[in-house]
């Protein structure tokens, strides 16, 4: 019956061709191939996969992906094959006609591991032609990983047509991977493949080269040299990666510590509630995003830009309030200030816990902050990159402010000699309040940035307070450059110790090193010289 039908269809197709219609061949080899799925024989199935995948028929992709998911049903009696869609509707695999129901005698086409690989490769090959660049790139990468010989033809075809540079490179890599494992490839082809993989030079290329098995002597030799070159470049890249993570951690530390450097460095005030200012900044971001979500969803991408000035104002205002109501009574009593601000931090934490609940609050990433890009062998996420840029910008602005504005001048004057500054007509108590507000406001800004990479919870600030103090103490009090150097040194040291010692031991080692360091230089890396520090 099917043979009869197929003969009639073939005749029909021929008649169409006679009228010079360039239709894809949807009768003949494709249909025969599809019918082979019904034989329930692994080698027939493999043949069928090859035929269908190279047919160019629009049903090829649905059929192969159905096969992959176990949705390709074959009826051994009628030799008919059906594709059951994910929505439960079925079509005839050979014609694409919808069918009412799949007969009970039909069962899913079985696969074994070898077949699964060819299915993956076939899907890779099929999606290589997709109009979407991302899909093509992914397909090329999956072919690279599976390096099935069957996909070679598809890769070559795609390579000839491909215009996009990165997809083309991925296809080239995929081709090299296939050739390297293809038993009947020529020595020249294999040497070229090794050279391509050497250029690629990542962990996966290394895995392919080390696991390529028996090869001609020249290829083995080339591979050995490629392996050693890849290994050394990978070592360099892992160093670069650690350095990047270190910079990223350093920027977070710097952000958290700058405000502290101002209040501690300029005013000599230990503000244990500094972490809570960071937390307030993070919660300001949360509130801003909530308002935007419910009222103006279109502005979501600008939420952080709105949150930054707001967080500065909120945290800054709270800072001025704290200075006026508590800290100004405690000048010259640093230990008492420490205790009072610790109490304040408990109150602020509990207040936030009462208002927003004790659990983490969700703060989203705007689109320009999510995602990542590849730089050589390392992946750089946009949020970390933006935080680094933002931190450096905040640092530069602060430095400029201290240097070029009237308030900055007054602040420096008060730091250097409070009584002399007062004698010169500077209202030192006003400068104190503003300085404390500035430090707190910057902590608030830090909170906006940290809300992007950390959990926004009432405990957010606590996790940064000890680290921030370490940075300030290490860098030296009263010197912003010291804070910068301190933050990045600690960040990078931490990330280079982590792979060796593990995260927790690395952190402990850093703390112990700082304790020892303080013995050598009690005033930090960049100590202020002169009488100001000998209070």
């Amino acid at each position: 019956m099917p043979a009869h039908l197929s003969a009639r269809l073939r005749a029909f197709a021929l008649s169409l061709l006679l009228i010079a219609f360039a239709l894809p061949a949807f009768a003949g080899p494709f249909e025969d191939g599809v019918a082979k799925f019904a034989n329930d024989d692994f080698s027939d199935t493999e043949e069928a996969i090859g035929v269908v995948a190279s047919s160019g028929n629009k049903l090829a992709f649905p059929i192969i992906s159905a096969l992959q998911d176990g949705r390709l049903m074959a009826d051994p009696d009628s030799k008919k094959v059906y594709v059951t869609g994910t929505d439960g509707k079925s079509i005839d695999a050979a014609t694409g006609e919808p069918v009412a129901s799949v007969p009970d005698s039909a069962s899913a086409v079985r696969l074994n591991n070898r077949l699964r690989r060819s299915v993956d490769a076939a899907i890779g090959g099929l999606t290589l032609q997709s109009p979407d660049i991302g899909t093509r790139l992914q397909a090329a990468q999956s072919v690279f990983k599976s390096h099935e010989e069957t996909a070679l033809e598809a890769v070559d075809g795609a390579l000839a047509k491909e215009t996009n540079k990165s997809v083309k490179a991925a296809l080239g890599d995929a081709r090299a991977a296939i050739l390297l494992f293809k038993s009947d490839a020529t020595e020249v082809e294999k040497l070229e493949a090794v050279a391509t993989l050497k250029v690629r030079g990542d962990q996966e290329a290394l895995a392919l080269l080390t696991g390529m098995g028996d090869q001609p002597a020249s290829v083995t030799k080339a591979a050995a040299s490629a392996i050693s070159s890849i290994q050394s470049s990978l070592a360099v890249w892992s160093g670069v990666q650690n350095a990047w993570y270190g910079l990223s951690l350093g920027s977070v530390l710097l952000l958290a510590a700058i405000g502290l450097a101002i209040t501690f460095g300029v005013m000599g005030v230990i503000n244990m509630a500094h972490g809570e200012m960071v937390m307030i900044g993070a919660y300001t971001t949360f509130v801003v995003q909530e308002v935007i979500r419910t009222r103006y969803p279109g502005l979501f991408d600008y939420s952080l830009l709105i949150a930054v000035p707001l967080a500065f104002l909120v945290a800054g205002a709270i800072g001025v309030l704290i200075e006026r109501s508590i800290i100004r009574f405690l000048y010259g009593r640093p230990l008492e200030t420490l205790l009072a601000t610790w109490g304040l931090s408990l109150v602020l934490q509990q207040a936030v816990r009462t208002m927003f609940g004790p659990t983490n609050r969700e703060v989203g990433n705007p689109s320009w902050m999510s995602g990542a890009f590849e730089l050589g062998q390392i992946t750089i996420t946009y949020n970390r990159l933006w935080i680094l840029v933002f931190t450096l910008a905040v640092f530069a602005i602060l430095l400029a402010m201290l240097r070029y504005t009237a308030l900055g001048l007054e602040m420096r004057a008060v730091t250097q000699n409070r009584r002399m500054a007062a004698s010169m007509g500077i209202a030192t108590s006003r400068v104190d309040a503003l300085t404390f507000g500035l430090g707190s406001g910057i902590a608030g800004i830090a909170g906006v940035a940290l809300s992007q990479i950390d959990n926004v919870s009432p405990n957010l600030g606590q996790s940064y307070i000890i680290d921030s103090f370490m940075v300030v103490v290490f860098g030296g009090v009263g010197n912003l450059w010291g804070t910068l150097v301190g933050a990045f040194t600690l960040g990078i040291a931490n990330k280079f110790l982590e792979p060796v010692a593990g995260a927790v031991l690395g952190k402990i080692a850093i703390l112990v090193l700082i304790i020892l360091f303080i013995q050598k230089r009690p005033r930090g890396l960049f100590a202020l010289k002169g009488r100001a520090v000998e209070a």
Partner: protein
Amino acid sequence: MTPHMLTRSLDRSATIFLAVVAACGILIPLSNLLLPAGSFLQVPTYLVALWGKYVCYAILALAIDLIWGYCGILSLGHGAFFALGGYAMGMYLMRQIGTRGVYGNPILPDFMVFLNYSKLPWYWYGFDMFWFAALMVLVVPGLLAFCFGWLAFRSRVTGVYLSIITQAMTYALLLAFFRNDFGFGGNNGLTDFKDILGFNVQAEGTRAALFALSCLALILGFLICRAIVSSKLGKVLIAVRDAESRTRFLGYRVESYKLFVFTVSACMAGVAGALYVPQVGIINPSEFAPGNSIEAVIWVAVGGRGTLVGAALGAVVVNYAKTFFTSGVLAPYWLFMLGALFILVTLLLPKGIVGTFNAWWDSSKEKRNAASASAAAEDGVTQPKMAE
């Protein structure tokens, strides 16, 4: 004239304090053990354990007051010494469990069996003997304090810098003790104790005895602190507190004095921790949390920095308040109260309860003296008049 009066007033409050502690140490266990349960005057066992905890806190507060009140060293890491003493005692108690553990291993504590330890780590050797554990209760915190202090004081790390690195020290220990492979039970710590010196730790008699011992330790600690601060050494310590550079220029080796008192204080904190653990029944790394150490400082501040009686009193008062408020409907507000306590005490009551009381007592006494003196002077002035 005035210093003499001060010591006399201290003597009086010290006598009252010692009498009260001794009375509690004798009467509370006796009432718990001898009077029938449910009787009006009988102290229930849970209260004995609770007050035993307060007494241990009072010893810790004494230790902090000794260095902060009399030598100006604000340690934000004294909880670490307390916890180390506690761990030393906990290790002894763990070794006493023996085959009664869940896994029944005669040598290895349960958590080690659970974590696939094949043999006892070397630093657990000897803790099956009480005398060794008791020695370690003093030696471990003392040694850490000695090394830490030697490094810090020699390079003249003072003031807030010292506070911050002591905090970093306890934080580093917190992280370390949270690790399973550190060999101290990870975040579960040491618990499920059975015996201490052959007595069941849960038994009423043992608890009463531990309470009495804690009171005895408090009395001893108080006497040691008193002896230190009222000696010539104590005078130097106070001089260091008030003018460190000047004391150094007068020829005293400031760092030696500081190191001595810091080490003694750490040993006291260790003893407090060691008495705390059997009464509470558990020691875990959260005792190292920097917050605990700062809380202990506020006990001293509330009671009165620089008055030994005040430190002990502050520990009991604040912890009683904590128990009272955190167990009722006011629980969510406890942190507000604690925070407010930190702020208000430093702003309004910098001398603490006992310090303020002493100052008031002295000033009223002085007024009375002055009044009588001026009356006498007036008499003196009027007399010649009369003679005229």
